[in-house]
């Protein structure tokens, strides 16, 4: 079985989290971008999923030969921090969007 590169899988996870945050916000403020996502996946949410999966795989392959860290803790903290802040940004954006009408 293929040996997984820890540095690469951490980097691709962080990249995908911020990509999802960016696509979420951008698709709400840009009609053309939302249309592009719809063209990719027939629905903007499916489009986001497809783009995320492709970027996850491509980023992993891009860094798959990179040097692995001595410890994975800092990478895990980066992932958890990205997920928590990314989720709060999405939540805060939709509150603002709802309140501002």
């Amino acid at each position, binding site marked *: 079985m293929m040996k997984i590169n820890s540095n690469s899988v951490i980097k691709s996870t962080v990249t995908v989290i911020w990509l999802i945050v960016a696509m979420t916000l951008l698709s709400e403020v840009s009609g053309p971008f939302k249309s592009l996502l719809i063209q990719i996946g027939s629905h903007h949410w499916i489009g986001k999923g497809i783009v995320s999966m492709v970027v996850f795989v491509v980023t992993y392959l891009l860094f798959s030969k990179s040097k692995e860290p001595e410890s*994975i803790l800092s990478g895990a903290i980066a992932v958890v921090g990205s997920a928590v802040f990314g989720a709060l940004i999405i939540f805060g954006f939709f509150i603002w969007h709802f309140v501002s009408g």
Partner: protein
Amino acid sequence: MHILIGIHAVLGEIGALAFIWVFVEMMNPNLAGLKRARAAALLGALLLIGAWIAGGFYYVTQYGAAVKPIILSGPLPWAHSVITETKEHVFLFLPFLSLLSWGLLRRYQSEFIQNRNFRIAILLISGLLVLMAFSMAGMGFMISSGFRAALEAKVI
């Protein structure tokens, strides 16, 4: 009530339980425990991917046309505008976090036994997965409440 919501919720919650299992195994791991943690993480990842597909199919084919307009016309429109919108997008983090957890557990063996930092890394990721998966269930409850409130407002 829709069967796809049930499948989505069941797969998601069993997926969360699988990562609780990972979390517990990583608190004081040995070789046998690591093997179980790897199996639990793989199971959890597959279940969360299944929840993604079931929930996504429901969202795309049913929710937008049949549920969203009713919630928006009811007394709790934020249940869609804030909660559904947040849930559908933050959920996308979960399959990737679960694959990361499984990938790291596959990559290392004795490091988890010998090095506390490696254990903490998996504890953080699996703990986050559990909290996020259960928060999805909480948001699902709020969305259902928004739908029910809209129906009740029209009936009464």
